[in-house]
């Protein structure tokens, strides 16, 4: 439903706009929905707008969970 990709905010422009970098490709998108996002943050981008910030700590935690041993029943 919602094609969206993680991208790094390279720099903020006038107003709500910012230049993001996704895998070396740069585009100008709007941060109107995530106004608290700062340069260096990663955001999820959908149709030219950031919809959420990506939490790097949670990303690490999720990756670590994948590698959990089978009998370590995860707590939520």
């Amino acid at each position, binding site marked *: 439903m919602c094609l969206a990709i993680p991208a790094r905010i390279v720099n903020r422009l006038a107003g709500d706009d910012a230049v993001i970098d996704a895998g070396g490709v740069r585009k100008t998108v709007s941060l109107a929905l995530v106004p608290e996002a700062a340069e260096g943050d990663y955001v999820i981008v959908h*149709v030219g707008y950031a919809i959420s910030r*990506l939490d790097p700590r949670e990303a690490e935690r999720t990756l670590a969970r994948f590698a959990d041993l089978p009998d370590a029943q995860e707590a939520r």
Partner: protein
Amino acid sequence: MKYVDEFRDGDIARVLAAKIADAADRARRYAFMEFCGGHTHAIARYGLTDLLPRNVVMVHGPGCPVCVLPIGRIDNAIELALERGVTLCTYADTLRVPASRGTSLMKAKSSGADVRMVYSAADALRIAADHPEREVVFFAIGFETTTPMSALVVQQADRLGLANFSVFCNHVLTPAAIANILESPQLRKIGPVPLDGFVGPAHVSCVIGSAPYEYFAAEYAKPVVIAGFEPLDVLQAVLMLVRQVNAGRHEVENEYTRAVSREGNLTAQARIAEVFGLRRSFEWRGLGEVPYSALRINERYARFDAERRYGIVYRPVADNPACECGAILRGAKRPAECRLFASTCTPESPLGSCMVSSEGACAAHYGYGRWRDGARQAA
């Protein structure tokens, strides 16, 4: 790409697949619905079906806003472009969807209608601002992920005092769709839905949060695990669902914690609430009328509502009576069980919502999986 590649690691995928096989009780079947077209796409693209044990099946739900858009609404959009002469701006996804009498937005364009593909709602607004002499209509579709953008452009149009811009709103709501799948009159015909849980949408949940699913989990006793779009996210979510089912739990869990919180994106929710209101009912192709499942522009921004501005009259158009989308969207039937699948109904000439876009259950199966049907029959 950072935060993408790590979640596509083939070796970890096999570890997760082994965990799922281990956890799944051989004596029973698990059927999980992935509601979101993006998940359908990930499963198909990475061949995740091959990694799951045979007793864990994924069912594709109606999470594709293009697929569930009724033909009559596309007819309205074509009418605006061809007969009312507006500049109709649309996401590319709708361009090829067949409407009534063999038309489509792409065909209307070749007949001279000013139909323009845009990547973003902001592009439509820019076209309106740059061309005050043209009437510009933005064909807004999508679930909650895409709705905030439409709200923003309406508010911007208002601030700019644009007199030539409006939005044809077809935004639909995820929780209402899930409720409809679990409980609707059609189910009396199809029988109880054999679903054990849901893989919740990734980016809709960025906007609405994980809280709205708590009602379903409790009321219908079905676990919901919100999952990111990457294949490892999907596998991990399936594992979490299998564990919940085994333990008799039915809770909302969040696998996509790196982007989804319980309350969601409050800024986005506020913008939506400022601009849109609930429609009492809206037709979903394949599901029929679904109450409180869609949005319309509210009174405050009425002059940006294309339906009011152009006096649009909606005329429902029935699908082929042999179309099984209603059952397929609820997981009661599989694409190959529909008489029309791959014979008269193909991606080039789709007859029902499940075939309309590549995320639809039938299109995904046709594109990525139908070659197995032949093999299975031959085996």
